[in-house]
């Protein structure tokens, strides 16, 4: 994103096209139900547009977008009536599909990975995803989520602990030591 003023609208369209999948997947990794993904992605981009002028061009865009997705997903989860889905269910990629047996293995691996992610508490998961998966440094993560750096480190530590616990549970469930 460059200059704001008249170029803002067209830039928003570009951001939408380039980062739609990123926002979509972020919501999915926050456990948003497949049937709600479209509405909530719409909601995220509405909020992004409202605050588009506030985007700091000196910083990466994705953490900034991710923070919107996090807040929308958190608000959505607070409503008890919203079901929480095991993330990833029903969203198997179909492009360049491998053979069926390989697909089964991949699908199982993916479900395991998503289950581990699902076991991390939401605010910790936000830090974990941005840092461990998306690869942004903790100060960047803290800035995007508007939390102190020390809090981000603390959440990361707790997220890793949640992960370890989830892995232990999975290993026990499968009889793997």
């Amino acid at each position, binding site marked *: 994103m460059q200059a704001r003023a008249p170029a803002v609208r067209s830039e928003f*369209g570009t951001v939408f096209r380039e980062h739609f999948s*990123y926002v979509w997947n972020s919501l999915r*990794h926050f456990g948003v139900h497949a049937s709600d993904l*479209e509405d909530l992605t719409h909601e995220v981009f509405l909020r992004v547009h409202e605050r588009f002028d506030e985007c700091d061009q000196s910083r990466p865009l994705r953490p900034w977008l991710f923070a919107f997705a996090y807040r929308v997903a958190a608000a959505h989860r607070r*409503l008890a*009536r919203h079901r929480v889905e095991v993330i990833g269910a029903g969203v198997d990629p179909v492009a360049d599909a491998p053979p069926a047996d390989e697909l089964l293995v991949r699908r199982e691996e993916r479900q*395991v990975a998503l289950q581990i992610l699902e076991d991390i508490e939401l605010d910790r998961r936000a830090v974990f995803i941005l840092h461990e998966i998306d690869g942004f440094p903790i100060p960047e993560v803290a800035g995007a989520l508007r939390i102190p750096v020390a809090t981000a480190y603390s959440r990361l530590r707790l997220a890793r602990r949640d992960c370890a616990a989830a892995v232990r549970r999975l290993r026990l469930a499968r009889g793997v030591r």
Partner: protein
Amino acid sequence: MNGPGDRQDWLEILRRDRETPAPEAAMARVATRLGIDTTSAASLPRGRPATAAKLGGAHIAGMLAAAFIAGGATGMLLQARLGRDRGARIASVHAPMPPAESTERSGATPAAPASPSAVDSRPSVASRPPPAATPATIVAAARNQQTQLDAERALLDGARGALVSGDSDAALRALDRHARTFRRPLLAEEHDALLVQALVRAGRYDEARARAEALRHKFPQSLLLPAVDAALASIP
């Protein structure tokens, strides 16, 4: 993955999963709702669903907008109907309030409103003693009607909430309960409009179209028709 939870493995899987392309159809629909032209750099992001629907574009309002509009319009209709029903409430003091017509499962005890036909079929005022239209009876009648309104509104709010959260089955259940509980509902328009939206959401398009047509015939001036039309327009 050698066993569940080999850290580098599942982190790598998640990294790949985060790059999964979102469904193109969903992207196109959201772009339309936002007013973004996906074929060029030009874009005109539009406001929240209610605002979008107000603009009247055929493709602007989605199901969320329709549900939102229905909620807002409910308040307006409620006000209008309370005003309309004042005369009926006064007429109803000529006879005892009819018994509650509900099968009542929700715990509330709504009473049926006095129907104009029931008032008309009664003996004329000349053959009856003067009505005991005391302030207390008028207040009691109003309370009964308000109780029914509250009970109906609670059911319809539940349906609307389920619809907004994408649970069309729960919405249809709540609407069915409303229909079975209130044979002469005060919020019939709202019920019928929500039903069309829920049927569309559930993929029961033919039923949705039929219900919409019935609503249009029954309430040709309904404020909810734009929301109903928006729901029908979203049918693929």
